[in-house]
């Protein structure tokens, strides 16, 4: 078999060296009763590369590819053009097939990349420091809440109604077991966010306020007052960014005073991937660095005084601190962090701002056009590349009808908030640089047909 270099002669020779007559002698510790002799039943036998490729291509061909149709979906996962060089570079064997850089002398490539990634993320989110990545935005969000609990020694978190409902679910799932108290309500279909309301609810038990920016409905609101209010009450402001490209156009949460900023980095370098692997961004103020979860890469020097990089502050981590660790995370999203970093390096400040400007412009064009569809109203006053429409019909059926017309026209709030009938007519529409004016036109026309 092509991946197994040993042939029968090799195996015989090696068994002889070991002093075993048969391979099964090496498996004696497995109780006879449970030990399998032949291959497990009703599973196929090994297959040539060509056959495996045919089988997976057949599966792939059953999916409607985003790039082949007018595409307007977001709600936490955005489709951006990723330069070809990104995918080439992350496939270099020295990156792809390396392990966590525990041997820094022969892992400077990964380590320097992580140091650069941490700096890019910290600057983009407006924070002092960032870590070497988390699984995704939703788990990063929960980790931030637990971090706030450790820092404030308080257990009540106020979750903004604009926070991605899946992020809320993840947090609620965990809180059930950890005893954290989470306060949260579903959003209303109007232009105003719940920031004012949140400010009013902060009290001495509040560990943190968690707000998404731009929020699940695409709304953008100034976080400065919220940050001040939280900090005044000894609580932390946690900002969640699911579309980092937005920060090429609007002020960063850190700038507005957020203590911890977490995010989903998938927009840069990673692609849609049906939801994973993605890359969780995690940044905060310098003073909280020792409470951060996950790996951190730091600068140092080698025995000759040359600058080099190592994983550091590991006393926060599970492999050193075990049950006292700040988190149980070990494997993170290293290669996605590389993709994010390469894409960000290609863009640079100039490119990121151009990209953001282009996204916003296309979104404005789309919003204006879609508002003209009879019965459709736009709730947003402010937005970046995503906004929410209210339809005269249940949006779930509309998205399915659009899909039948080979148009992927947004994410229905009905799917995101099944338990909230009032939101059923809401449709979240994202528009990036990959959408053309013709795509917008086709979408608008099809929407009109479907609603007619």
């Amino acid at each position, binding site marked *: 078999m092509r*991946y197994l270099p040993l042939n029968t002669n*090799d195996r015989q020779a090696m068994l002889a060296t070991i002093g075993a007559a048969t391979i099964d002698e090496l498996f004696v510790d497995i*109780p006879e*009763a*449970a030990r*399998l002799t032949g291959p497990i039943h009703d*599973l196929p036998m090994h*297959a040539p590369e060509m056959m*495996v490729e045919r089988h997976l291509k057949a*599966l*792939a061909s059953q999916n409607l590819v985003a790039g082949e149709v007018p595409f307007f979906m977001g709600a936490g*996962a955005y*489709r951006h053009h990723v330069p070809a*060089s990104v995918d080439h*570079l992350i496939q270099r064997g020295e*990156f*792809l*097939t*390396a392990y966590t850089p525990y*041997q*820094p*002398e022969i*892992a400077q490539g*990964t380590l320097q990349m992580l140091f650069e990634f941490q700096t890019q993320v910290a600057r983009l989110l407006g924070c002092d420091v*960032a870590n*070497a990545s988390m699984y*995704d935005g939703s788990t990063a969000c929960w980790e931030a809440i637990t971090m706030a609990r450790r820092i404030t020694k308080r257990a009540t978190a106020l979750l903004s109604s604009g926070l991605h*409902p899946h*992020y809320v679910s*993840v947090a609620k799932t965990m809180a059930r077991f950890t005893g954290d108290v989470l306060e949260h309500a579903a959003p209303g279909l109007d232009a105003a966010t719940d920031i004012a309301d949140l400010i009013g609810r902060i009290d001495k038990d509040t560990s943190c306020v968690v707000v998404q920016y731009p929020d699940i409905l695409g709304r953008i*609101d100034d976080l400065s007052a919220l940050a001040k209010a939280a900090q005044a009450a000894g609580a932390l402001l946690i900002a969640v960014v699911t579309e980092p490209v937005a920060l090429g*156009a609007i002020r960063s949460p850190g700038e507005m005073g957020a203590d911890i900023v977490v995010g989903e980095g998938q927009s840069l370098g990673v692609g*849609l*991937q049906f*939801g*994973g*692997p993605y890359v969780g961004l995690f940044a905060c103020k310098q003073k909280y660095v020792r409470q951060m979860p996950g790996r*951190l*890469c730091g600068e140092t020097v*080698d025995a*000759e005084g*040359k*600058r*080099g990089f190592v994983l550091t*502050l590991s006393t926060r*981590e599970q*492999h*050193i601190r075990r049950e006292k660790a700040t988190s149980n*995370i070990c*494997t*993170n999203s290293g290669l996605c962090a590389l993709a994010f970093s390469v894409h960000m*390096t290609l863009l*640079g400040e100039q*490119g990121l701002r151009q990209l953001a400007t*282009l996204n916003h*412009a296309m979104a404005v064009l789309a919003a204006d056009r879609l508002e003209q569809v009879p019965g459709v109203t736009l709730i*947003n006053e*402010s937005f970046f590349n995503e906004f929410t429409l209210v339809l005269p019909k249940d949006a779930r059926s509309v998205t*399915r009808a659009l899909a039948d017309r080979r148009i*992927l026209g947004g994410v229905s709030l009905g799917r995101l908030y099944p338990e909230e009938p009032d939101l059923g007519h809401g449709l979240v529409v994202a528009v990036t640089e990959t959408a053309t004016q013709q795509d917008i036109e086709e979408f608008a026309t099809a929407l009109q047909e479907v609603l007619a």
Partner: protein
Amino acid sequence: MSMNNQGRPTRQDNGSDAGGAPATSTGNRALLLEEALIFEIGDAAHTGVDFAPAPKVNSRLGGLDRRSAIGLPGLSEQETVRHYTRLSRQNYGIDLGLFPLGSCTMKHNPRLNEKLARLPGFADIHPMQPVQTVQGALGLIDELADWLIKLTGMTAVAMSPKAGAHGELCGILAIRSALEARGDMRSVILVPESAHGTNPATAAFAGYQVEDIPADSHGRVDLEALKARLGPDVAGVMITNPNTCGLFERDLKAISDAVHDAGGFVYCDGANFNAIVGKVRPGDLGVDAMHINLHKTFSTPHGGGGPGSGPVVLSAALAPYAPLPIVERQDDGTLVLIEEETAEDHHKSSFGRMVAFHGQMGMFTRALSYILSHGADGLQQVAEDAVLNANYVLRALEDVLDAPFAESGPCMHEALFSDAGFAEGFSTIDVAKGLIDEGFHPMTMYFPLVVHGAMLVEPTETESKAALDQFIGALRSVAQRARDGDASLHSAPHFAPRRRLDETLAARKPVLVWTEPDAVIAEAAE
């Protein structure tokens, strides 16, 4: 030695190993190229991308337009390609040579898997697309799930956990949900000392107290001691099998029975499943939950630290509590995705959601490609060759390296050695760094904690006999030098891009992000 801010010597110097060779003005050594940080070579006025001009529109950014600079340097495409290509060349990877990192299963990563994961039909679909448009993707998840269930002899599998530790969390939460469902509030999870750090960390993260399970002198769980500790406060045990000493827990079935009798559940850390896949089904040993690191046993690449994927197989007792989303096949053959929207009717008792979407699709694709390539016969061969290779290494080196449990019979997929027998002042790290000069990645050092100066060697099944023989020869020569007290080992590695790095300095005054040199000076001046 004085340095400029790009890690280049300001005095011409190529390090003590340059010997007679003259210094270079660049700090490069032919193909060993130094590379500055992007912040040192790029700036905000350069970029490696082009965009069509944006249509003119009135901003709707709610007055929050960014005014200040972000500080993100840009590079032209060629500079970018060069930067990361040069960095990559300072890394070691499986593609370069044997990577015997115990407990990490660094096996070959077939490029077929990379190619198939990039099919637009898998890579370019949105997680929230209407299910009728992603039947192939759901079909792939369903097919992989079926394999994992059959290979482990379990009832169900939760696909969404993003890595091993996340899978552990999933399993522990399922256990806790099952206990709560019967109104049984237990507070303790038992974990062996030899366990990986994620085990206790996970139990604590899920709100449990962690207590040690004692080990016997042969490196396995002490069954009697364990039984003695079981009781109404014990929610469950976390056992790694094969364990981190590379040994199979012979008594696992007995342990499971005891734990079950005491009303608890058995979590098995399946990180080492590679040693037994196709040889035994954990379900047959009474396991209730086990995560499978697709990035180990099923060869999805480690990528310098991730991403991974940690599906969790579940027993009948825990299956009802599996997290959302869940892929289910209808009678008409179509696949549905059970999320909050439909959970009420189908999955009432699910303990909730662990991630925003459906887990690591990109890893599922690679893992299924790997699994189908091997088939049921090939996967069994994988376990046999992995174990054969490990025992070959163990027996070939036990004369120069102390092998604490060699007497306990054959090892499984990894050979465990200790630093006993090294000259005064020589330890595992010296051997590890010596191996770097020899062109190999070191083994896992100082883990498991139960063995002094542990060296955990996991060759995996994808190494040829020739590669093993070369590795054995190199390790033998380095081990001999450690026994003989060869001082040059203390300064190893000598040929790597960097000499030993000062980790204490890094931790004492952490520099985690780059700052303009003058800023640094200013700071220093304070």
